[in-house]
């Protein structure tokens, strides 16, 4: 038998084809088998040989394909060890940049998502850090504590204050603290330089020790010393003033001769003794000057030698000794305070109770930020979720890209890239996205920062301490990097599982029914579930806060804030009582005469601004005259039109009228709480017959009407909320302005003008009337009542708006992500859909296929989200009003909204699926 291997090789060589020996041998064995078979069929040698030659000729015709690929061998030498890591990294970076440039849409979306996520997170982190964590700008600020006093658990009328009884007792002897200091804010009209316009200043009256507590150092001149406050008088203070840096620059151009010059404050000449450095802002940035203040004793004798009892409440701060804790300081202060003279009824007026004093000491920073802390932490958690969502979204995009790049990854693996190398490549790619996103995010944050002072409510604490500093930058960098690595690792993990052979043979479509079977698709689906869950949590939070805000806005405050113009008219202490009365009555009657004005009135109190005074007295309740009870009430001195101007509802009896004069019987109007608590023996509460209170007599209101003054109740009005709507009811007494005999009972009266339409145009009238009647006076705090209400709600509104923004962003991401995942899944299942259509599936069935997938994802995400929301919304409890943390409407509406968004997201993919042409799909 011929050597067929040689024959094959010769024939092919003659045809110009060279083949491997290996293949020649294999074909040779085939040829000889064919020869033997031919001979077995009965052919002779020549015929059999001819048949074999025909076979060899056929091989020759297709000889190009007759070769095995060489076994894998490193075609290119591995890079030398020393240049490995960094050279490779630079290459990876270049390669990643090229890829991103080739897919600008992906790059744009990924960077934008990251930028918004990181920008929002960085901004919120900087606010949280600046407000809650950054040390206060005083030396050893962690040793500063704020003091608050309570009696039997009752907080004082002004929160976070202590009494002079406590201050004096502790100030005289203290072991746990180095020093304590007190202050109160004072609004003053000042003429800083001769001939200059009067300016309204916020000043602080401070004890000389306060500067010691703060360890403050003046820029020019000196601070107050202990004796500055003391000599003479009942509420003495020597006539000195320390200027803020801003006021000094503004009024004295920063000249040194400001020291020892004289400033007129509220008609009193004060000598400038010092200037504070630019960064000194206490108690806040609005304070422009400081005057010395001596805390008076609880009992003493006035200038005429008559004994008096005086209780002051004011804010106070202490500096702990090294090693002392706030609770030790609180214990000491409590003990000292209980040894102080008993303020008696004055304490009842301030606290509503005269039990033993209880002093608490909390770190100054915690006290300052107490009312924003829960909300900030909630928002920080929310923005953290948002960043996770944004990161997951970019990871999902990367996964989708990785799926379409399986061939590329397989080829890279085939030519020798190790798993580590591939992981690095993918992480470098997502790091580029992360870094670009982080930088864009920082730019967003920087822009937001400039806008912060106008975005944050005016009373937001420590806005000036919020800064984009190194720490915040480091946070942003860390967040970007962490997010990038998270985004890169997921696809890298999948890349490592890539089966080389399959990937190279594969065209990326799914096997029948396998739209979600690939690990990539499963990972993206899980991400979608997570994103929907996060959206759900954020939406529930935003919905609850919004509903709470609306509830706050529409809450019944006991007065009607629409169409009321309000302003304060600070009156000099030198005005006599007659002059005050004349001025205010002329003002209100001239205002009433204006067309469109329904009522004009004045009083010493205005909701949200000033409560008026506090009064404690002893009386025998009409229902049980045998006993004497301690009565405490807010005391408001008002003109007859006050109730109508503010829209306070009269429940029984009458309001004041012009018939109530200084000489007519003394009358008062009380609110429901007062009537229920003191006039009906407390037995019948709200909703009872208020008429019972009418005619009752309340003694000892004072008002400079001599001893044994008696006042008859002529009317009962609804309770009104002085501050927030959540505050407890307070007993109140209204006293006619004309029947108050004290010259200075209403030092800074408020004017109220109720108009038929928009009250703002009446500001000009008010100003011109005041200018005509009293040219030296200036209006202060001119605002509509509605604006005051809105301003007081700035924080809840801000929280609701910010959380709503986050939730909309998260839902947009989730919606777009869902759209992407479904489109991808439909594209992968085109053939399956084609087969199903060929099998007789109708359009509805195909659309149902996609819808089922969406429904599964949405149901899973929303269920998880609802459970998480249910648990998380409890933390919102403290900031909610008028809506429970588990509000049913919210928990029903939010899933519906999410389902609608999911449905919208699947519209296009479902349509695309329905339009799959089976003929083309199966070709």
């Amino acid at each position, binding site marked *: 038998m011929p050597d067929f291997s040689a024959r094959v090789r010769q024939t092919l060589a003659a045809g110009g084809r060279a083949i491997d020996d290996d*293949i020649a*041998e*294999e*074909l040779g*064995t*085939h040829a*000889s*088998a*064919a020869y033997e*078979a031919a001979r077995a069929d009965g052919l002779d040698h020549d015929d059999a040989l001819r048949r074999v030659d025909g*076979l060899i000729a*056929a*091989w020759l*015709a*297709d000889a190009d*394909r*007759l*070769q*095995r*690929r060489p076994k894998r061998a490193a075609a290119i030498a591995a890079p030398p060890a020393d240049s490995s890591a960094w050279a490779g990294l630079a290459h990876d970076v270049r390669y990643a940049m090229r890829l991103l440039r080739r897919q600008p849409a992906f790059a744009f979306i990924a960077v934008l998502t990251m930028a918004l996520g990181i920008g929002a997170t960085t901004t919120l982190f900087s606010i949280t850090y600046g407000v809650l964590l950054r040390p206060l700008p005083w030396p050893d600020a962690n040793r500063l504590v704020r003091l608050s006093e309570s009696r039997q658990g009752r907080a004082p009328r002004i929160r976070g204050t202590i009494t002079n009884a406590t201050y004096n007792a502790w100030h005289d002897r203290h072991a746990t603290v180095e020093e304590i200091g007190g202050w109160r804010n004072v609004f003053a009209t000042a003429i800083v330089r001769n001939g200059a316009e009067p300016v309204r200043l916020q000043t602080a009256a401070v004890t000389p020790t306060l500067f010691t507590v703060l360890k403050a150092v003046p820029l020019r001149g000196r601070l107050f010393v202990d004796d500055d406050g003391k000599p003479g008088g009942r509420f003495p203070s020597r006539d000195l003033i320390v200027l803020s840096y801003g006021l000094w620059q503004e009024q004295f151009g920063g000249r040194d001769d400001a020291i020892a010059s004289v400033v007129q404050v509220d008609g009193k000449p004060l000598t400038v003794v010092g200037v504070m450095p630019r960064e000194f802002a206490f108690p806040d940035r609005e304070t422009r000057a400081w005057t010395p203040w001596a805390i008076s004793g609880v009992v003493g004798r006035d200038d005429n030698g008559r004994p008096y009892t005086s209780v002051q409440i004011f804010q106070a701060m202490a500096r702990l000794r090294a090693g002392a804790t706030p609770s030790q300081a609180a214990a000491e202060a409590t003990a000292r305070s209980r040894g102080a003279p008993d303020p008696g009824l004055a304490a009842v007026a301030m606290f509503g109770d005269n039990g033993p004093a209880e002093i608490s000491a909390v770190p100054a920073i915690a006290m300052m930020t107490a009312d924003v802390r829960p909300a900030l932490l909630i928002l920080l958690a929310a923005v953290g979720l948002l960043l996770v969502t944004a990161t997951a979204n970019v990871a999902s995009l990367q996964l989708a890209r990785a799926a379409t790049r399986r061939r590329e990854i397989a080829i890279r693996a085939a030519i020798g890239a190790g798993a580590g190398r591939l992981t690095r490549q993918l992480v470098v790619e997502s790091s580029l996205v992360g870094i670009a996103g982080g930088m864009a995010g920082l730019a967003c944050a920087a822009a937001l920062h400039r806008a912060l002072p106008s975005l944050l409510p005016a009373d937001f604490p420590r806005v000036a301490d919020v800064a984009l500093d190194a720490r915040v930058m480091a946070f942003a960098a860390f967040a970007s990097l962490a997010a990038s690595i998270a985004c890169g690792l997921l696809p890298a993990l999948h890349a490592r599982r890539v*089966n080389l*052979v*399959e990937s*190279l*043979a*594969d*065209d990326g*479509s799914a*096997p*029948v029914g396998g739209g979600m079977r690939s690990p990539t698709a499963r990972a993206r689906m899980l991400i979608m579930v997570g994103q929907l869950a996060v959206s759900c949590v954020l939406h529930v939070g935003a919905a609850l806060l919004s509903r709470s805000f609306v509830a706050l806005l529409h809450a019944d405050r006991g007065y009607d804030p629409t169409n009321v113009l309000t302003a304060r008219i600070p009156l000099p202490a030198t005005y006599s009582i007659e002059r005050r009365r004349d001025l205010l009555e002329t003002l209100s009657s001239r205002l009433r005469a204006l067309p469109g004005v329904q009522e004009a009135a004045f009083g010493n109190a205005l909701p949200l601004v000033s409560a008026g005074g506090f009064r404690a007295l002893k009386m025998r309740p009409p229902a049980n005259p045998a006993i004497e009870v301690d009565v405490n009430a807010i005391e408001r001195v008002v003109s007859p039109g006050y109730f109508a101007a503010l829209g306070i509802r009269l429940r029984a009896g009458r309001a004041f009228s012009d018939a109530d004069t200084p000489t007519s019987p003394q009358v008062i109007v009380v609110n429901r709480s007062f009537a229920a608590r003191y006039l009906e023996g407390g037995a019948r509460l709200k909703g009872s017959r208020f008429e019972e209170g009418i005619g009752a007599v309340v003694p000892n209101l004072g008002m400079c009407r001599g001893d044994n003054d008696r006042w008859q109740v002529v009317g009962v009005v609804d309770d009104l909320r002085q501050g927030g709507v959540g505050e407890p009811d307070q007993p109140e007494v209204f006293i006619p302005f004309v029947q108050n005999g004290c010259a200075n009972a209403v030092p800074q009266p408020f004017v109220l003008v109720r108009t038929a339409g928009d009250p703002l145009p009446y500001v000009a009238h008010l100003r011109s009337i005041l200018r005509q009647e009293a040219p030296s006076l200036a209006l202060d705090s001119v605002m509509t009542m509605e604006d005051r209400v809105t301003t007081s709600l700035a924080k809840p509104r801000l929280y609701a708006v910010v959380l709503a923004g986050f939730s909309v962003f998260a839902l947009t991401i989730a919606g777009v992500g869902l759209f992407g995942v479904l489109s991808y899944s439909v594209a992968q299942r085109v*053939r399956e859909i084609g*087969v199903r259509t*060929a*099998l*007789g599936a109708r359009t509805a069935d195909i659309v149902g296929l996609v819808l089922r997938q969406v429904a599964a994802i949405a149901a899973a995400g929303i269920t998880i989200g609802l459970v998480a929301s249910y648990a998380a919304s409890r933390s919102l409890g403290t900031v909610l009003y008028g809506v429970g943390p588990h509000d049913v409407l919210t928990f029903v509406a939010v899933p519906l909204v999410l389902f609608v968004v999911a449905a919208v997201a699947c519209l296009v993919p479902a349509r695309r699926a329905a339009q799959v042409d089976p003929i083309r799909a*199966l*070709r």
Partner: protein
Amino acid sequence: MGTTLLERELKRGSTELLILALLDERQRHGYDISRLIEERSGGAITFHTASLYPTLYRLEDRGLIEGRWVERAGQRRRRCYRLTAAGRKVLAEQRSVWDTFFIALNRVAQIRHA
């Protein structure tokens, strides 16, 4: 993934599927494979011997089959091929695709007759 193969095989006479199916039974050498395809199809599938070896080599490159030289006493050494795990998987997938496809065609055809 099997559907790529399907497309290709529709045009090429299903060579790969046939080879994989034959190798599923036991390991075989090239001549054996070509003879069995002709025999079992009763000549219905026109088989180009020329394309057998290129196809074998391609399948081998893709790791679906594995070839090795086998020597038996008194015989010339022959290169025998057997199915790899990957090859078995692809074969199973292809079979299911074909099944589905045939059922589909069948149903469509019946509907048309009705």
